[in-house]
């Protein structure tokens, strides 16, 4: 063993300044360390000048390594890098089927939905079966099949057809399939629940807040959207179990003033997850942006207050998990990628996810099908029954490959978060080609702000709040893993 074996050498990290005195070092394997300005200088120029404790801490995070041969540590590092990048490597895991656009609601911010009596907004039986064949061609070992709309329960017959075709498909080869139905749950019946129980189908619904807020955001002619969604939640919990239903909220301008009331509503409904989501800027929502919209700063302000309330409940023994924070923390401090398709580098549209739209075409992402509703159909990858190779070789897929990597954008290449996030060609098209620089898009400003927010929280929690730190660590684990 030569002398100097343990002498520290730096591995590549990204650096993000979080305040005047502290910077975060980010390793692509899912490690974060916080360094003072002086230590950051030492880390870059002469790691041996760091204190022995800091050296050992950074070694344990793979940011420093010993100068001697360390094949074991190097292999561990490589395997963690591979684990972190495993999403989209084996073929699409997430498959979104949009059986129909029909919906009883007329939400102001909704992108796409059509009235219940609208004709021509649903898949045919043949198209549903073709979508199932296509899904089974994916090489992914675990499949998630999500039904969106419209409200898919308006065409329960199509949902049932797809589940039966997939569950008993000859190409399934024992692979687990996780089924999710995204619905208002207004149409949910006991019979449907009994059917869902057979295939362990999970339900995902929307709750925007207390009834007055929810009903303002989500109008139905009978003005009882909240009440009916809540009865749907209760029915599902009773027949399918408490873990069978989750909810997410959409932030409107009206929501901004009520972060606590919104979080409290989730606690009152006994939901252990809340997903605080901003308005989508796509499709119909864009036209109403004047009336419903707000700035990224306003959203982040709202988000911070709501998240604070979520922590407040956790301190009191109510285990509510905020999904957006979990997604960001998963990127920063987890060894495994949770596979959230909207934050991948390079962009995973069309690779980790495929959308089988009611119009008979396959799109690379939910946003792409919404963009199509506003007239830009350039992201169609092909017809639902087209061969997989043809879809992957389509101009749409090619465009995402070409401009969905960080190297295609100067701002993205220079960004500290480039291992977690990449340019979205669909976003760029929605913004009007070439008009908005990536860093000025709503997506970039919001995502960067949330990454910064989580880094601040982590720094604070590590320094002075161990119970918050362990909460953040648990949130970072991919859902379903860990305790």
């Amino acid at each position, binding site marked *: *063993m030569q002398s100097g*074996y*343990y002498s520290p050498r730096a591995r590549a990290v990204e650096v993000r300044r979080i305040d005047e005195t502290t910077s975060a070092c980010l390793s692509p394997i*899912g*490690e974060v360390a916080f360094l003072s300005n002086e230590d950051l200088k030492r880390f870059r120029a002469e790691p041996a000048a760091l204190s*022995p404790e800091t*050296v*050992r*801490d950074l*070694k*344990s995070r793979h940011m420093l390594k*010993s100068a*001697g*041969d*360390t*094949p*074991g*540590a190097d*292999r*561990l590092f490589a*395997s*963690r890098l591979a684990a972190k990048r495993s999403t989209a490597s084996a073929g699409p895991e997430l498959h979104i089927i949009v059986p129909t656009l029909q919906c009883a609601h007329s939400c102001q911010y909704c992108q796409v939905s059509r009235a219940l009596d609208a004709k021509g907004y649903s898949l045919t039986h043949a198209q549903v079966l073709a979508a199932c064949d296509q899904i089974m061609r994916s090489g992914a070992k675990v499949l998630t099949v999500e039904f969106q709309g419209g409200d898919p329960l308006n065409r329960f017959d199509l949902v049932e057809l797809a589940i039966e075709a997939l569950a008993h498909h000859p190409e399934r080869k024992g692979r687990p399939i996780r089924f999710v139905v995204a619905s208002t749950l207004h149409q949910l019946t006991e019979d449907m629940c009994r059917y869902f129980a057979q295939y362990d189908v999970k339900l995902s619904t929307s709750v925007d807040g207390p009834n007055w807020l929810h009903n303002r955001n989500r109008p139905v002619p009978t003005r009882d959207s909240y009440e009916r969604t809540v009865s749907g939640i209760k029915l599902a919990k009773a027949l399918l179990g408490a873990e069978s239903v989750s909810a997410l909220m959409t932030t409107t301008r009206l929501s901004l003033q009520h972060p606590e009331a919104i979080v409290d509503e989730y606690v009152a409904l006994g939901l252990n997850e809340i997903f605080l989501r901003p308005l989508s800027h796509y499709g119909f929502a864009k036209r109403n942006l004047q009336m419903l919209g707000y700035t990224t700063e306003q959203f982040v302000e709202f988000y911070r207050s709501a998240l604070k309330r979520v922590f407040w409940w956790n301190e009191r023994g109510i285990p509510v998990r905020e999904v957006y924070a979990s997604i960001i923390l998963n990127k920063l401090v987890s*060894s*495994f990628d949770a596979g959230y398709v909207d934050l991948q580098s390079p962009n995973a549209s069309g690779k980790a996810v495929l959308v089988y739209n009611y119009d008979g075409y396959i799109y690379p992402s939910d946003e792409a099908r919404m963009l199509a509703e506003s007239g830009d159909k350039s992201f169609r990858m092909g017809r639902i029954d087209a061969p997989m190779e043809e879809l992957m070789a389509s101009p749409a897929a090619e465009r995402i490959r070409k401009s969905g990597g960080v190297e295609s954008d100067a701002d993205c290449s220079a960004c500290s978060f480039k291992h977690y996030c990449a340019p979205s060609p669909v976003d760029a098209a929605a913004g009007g080609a070439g008009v908005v620089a990536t860093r000025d898009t709503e997506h970039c400003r919001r995502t960067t702000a949330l990454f910064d927010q989580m880094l601040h929280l982590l720094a604070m929690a590590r320094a002075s709040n*161990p119970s918050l730190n*362990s909460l953040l*660590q*648990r949130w970072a*684990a991919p859902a379903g*893993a*860990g*305790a």
Partner: protein
Amino acid sequence: MREVRLSHVSPVSGIFRVQASSRGVATLIAASGLDSEIRLAELLAVPGGVEPAGLEIGDVVKLNAGQSRAVVRYRASDRHQTLFVTNQCNSRCLMCSQPPTPQEDGWLFNEATDIVNLVMHPPVVVGISGGEPTLHPARLRALLDLLHSAWPDTKVEVLTNGRRLAEEAVTATLLQGLAPGRTNWLVPLYAGNDELHDFVVQSPGAFDETLAGLLNLQEFGQAVQLRTVMVRPVITELAQWASFVGRNLPFVQAVALMATEPVGFALANKEMTVIDVPEYGNELKAAVDELLGYGLRPVLMNMPLCKLPETLRPLAAVSISDWKNDYAAECHGCELRPGCAGFFVWDNTKIYRTGLRPVLKVEREGSHV
């Protein structure tokens, strides 16, 4: 190890099974077969009046010619069964309970083989221990194969520092074709960085080799229990260790945190290595929470229950082998005793045996009145 005094010196050396015992005469059978039985029964007559030497039928014993003692190498009624296969080691841990010797001791593997062939009632679990068993990869593999075929329902545990499993040739010999799920590898890792781990095991480069060994075990689908021992330097960086394990080695089946056995090198480095449990209660609790947060299963070993915070007690194991296990006088009547590890019988440091707080049934019942 458990020793039994004999009234006469033994005329033979070797490994034998006690076949029968009556009126102070034990009938023994050798591994080589029935022929030896008669001869040994004649030779080993223990006169009446003496206990049948404290032997039990089915015991597998070791005799040394010219010595009047039998070492019990296997007793069916024991809770823990161990096959000791070598006293050689490539590490020199600060707290080693079994200080290594450099001499060639391949006969220990032969003895282990004899023991396995003689045992009539295979145990639920058997441990292979040393020294460092992987210093002899071919012999170890032969023993594993024998165990898996002779004792098909027995869980086999190998206590190893994993360093040699970093080598491709060793991995090929030991792991190629070894059925997954049958062997549990118990591998100590003392820190989340090479400097501290290598200091604890007094071997430069050991951390890196153990990491590679662990990755090879994972690659071959082998089950791993990670271990650490509560010596002072380990306790200081226990939080970092726990988070390193959670983030880097999520494939391990369990993680054992053990109080030091106060014997061997541990006594020579007592200040640094033998520390009473309450002294590190907070660090222990934080590490356990961290491991649980990563979905790992912590197991606490060699720690008397009354010295552990109540929330950690369900994680404690009755971990001390029968032949080296006892309880203190205060433990009499303690209702935690059946699930308590107790003490090492030869522990004369008194460090673990002071400050006991037995939970007496009487007190509990009284409090309800």
